[in-house]
């Protein structure tokens, strides 16, 4: 009688814990989706600004080609190669801005670029944090044994260094 009672309580506790853990993970997956949507939208905006810059009258054809290429590369990249492509775009923009008087000639568009760069930085930080929280939770024993993540794919880390922006 007593053992069956203990067993019942234990079972209930285990069930509660599993449900609690599943909710936690679900919430984190949701956070990753949101932070990715943010990052994606912000990066798309940055690529659009890069294209705008590429079409400025002062830009020579070679630079235009490089910049347009980098912007399209970033826009159309698959999720796994996205961070590489975006880093490429960052590098190109940096190269362009080095010893250039373009920002003085077109303050409007370069202020926009500065703003969006700041937002990318925040979006990357939020996303990286969400991904690593999710990953570290999914590595815990209870999540692996009971397969609480179900069939959800492991979130892709966005390897984007702050200093390349």
């Amino acid at each position, binding site marked *: 009688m007593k053992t069956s009672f203990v067993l019942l309580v234990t079972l209930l506790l285990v069930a509660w814990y599993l449900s609690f853990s599943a909710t*936690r993970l679900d919430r984190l997956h949701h956070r990753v989706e949101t932070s990715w949507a*943010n990052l994606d*939208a912000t990066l798309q905006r940055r690529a*659009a600004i890069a294209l705008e810059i590429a079409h400025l009258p002062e830009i020579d054809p070679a630079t235009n080609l490089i910049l347009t290429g980098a912007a399209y590369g970033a826009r159309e990249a698959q999720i796994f190669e996205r961070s590489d492509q975006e880093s490429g775009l960052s590098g190109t923009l940096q190269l362009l801005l080095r010893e250039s008087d373009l920002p003085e000639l077109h303050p409007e568009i370069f202020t926009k670029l500065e703003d969006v760069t700041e937002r990318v930085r*925040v*979006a990357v930080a*939020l996303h990286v*944090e969400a991904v690593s929280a999710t990953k*570290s*939770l999914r590595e815990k024993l209870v999540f692996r044994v009971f397969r609480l993540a179900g069939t959800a794919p492991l979130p892709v880390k966005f390897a984007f260094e702050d200093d390349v922006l």
Partner: protein
Amino acid sequence: MMAYSPKSSGLRIGMVSPYGWDTPGGVQAHIRDLAKYYIDQGHYVSVLAPVSREESLADDFVVPAGRPISIPYNGAVARVLFGPVAASRVRQWISQGNFDLLHLHEPAIPSLSLLACWIGEGPMVGTFHAAAPKQKVAFAVSPLLEPVIEKLSARIAVSEIARETLTIHLETDAIVIPNGIDVDFFAKSEPKVEWQNGNTIGFIGRFEEPRKGLQILIDALPIISRFVPDVKVLIAGPGESAEILKSTNSQLRSKLSFLGRISEADKGSFLKSIDLYVAPNTGGESFGIILTEALASETAIVASDIPAFRNLLNGGEYGALFESESATELAKVIIDLLRDEQKRKDLANVGHQSAERFDWTQVAEQIMDVYSMALTGGEKVGLVSENRPWNRIFSRDSGQ
């Protein structure tokens, strides 16, 4: 091609203050200014806070949650509120508020903010203010805090030090956005003649607390007065000065003057009047809002080289640093600056330029950027229990 464009005007924002609203403090001041700024911008803001005397509550956007209790925390006494009654107040506030977003301040200490983070669901942003050294207890509680803190859509730390504290204790990262001030107010304050008598050094704070370091400044005074005979130390802040005066020798006593608590308006004049602001704090400081106010007032600063100050003053570029807890080093730096007016002015000038980034117009916009990212999902703030499976089953049953 903007698939996600959350509205950034007319938001309904719920903020939670961990500390008693009627006790003065940096966190409360931060929340008050931020709330007022957003209200001016056309948002709706409601602040849930512990309040000791509801009848003397001046801010109409504050919802009192009950009387705070005093607990020792991080070397000081914190006036916070928690427990089942407080939890039900939080639940009520959230369910009636119809908020787009919750902004929880200091959600990792036992407080209303932690309760709100536990009870709430949806877009939530947390700001971490404290810098605490490694604590055993923090490691003990982190497994309990983790499931709660991970619900935050975004974390903000007010300084690099606060961010490090967060990384060490809770293994999570944060975006650094500094505390805000009204730069114009301090830049345009008028000096008062009574505070400009001789070479004046200013100090603001609860001077009885050892970590504020007033004793170090007093210990440095004999040396300073030998080189700068007309030096005067003006001390503003609440506390009992008799004890300190009694233990100081009679010749120095005349050089100290305790002003007691000064109003916010007087603080501007005070900082404008003095020749040098000294912050001899020995630790426990996360940001140093008073230093940003001194920078905004274009007053030269001497501060101890604790990490928070070193960071804020960019390693000594915007204000002079001295080796923390060393009275002789402090005296040296002060004498050097008091005797060289040009150097003092240059330092104040460089410092003033660095204060711009702390202005609310910049800080509040940065916080709004984080809000808009937290809002991307498009849902509203709700109560966590609404989403639990068993509650869903029960509510379906009762609905039929």
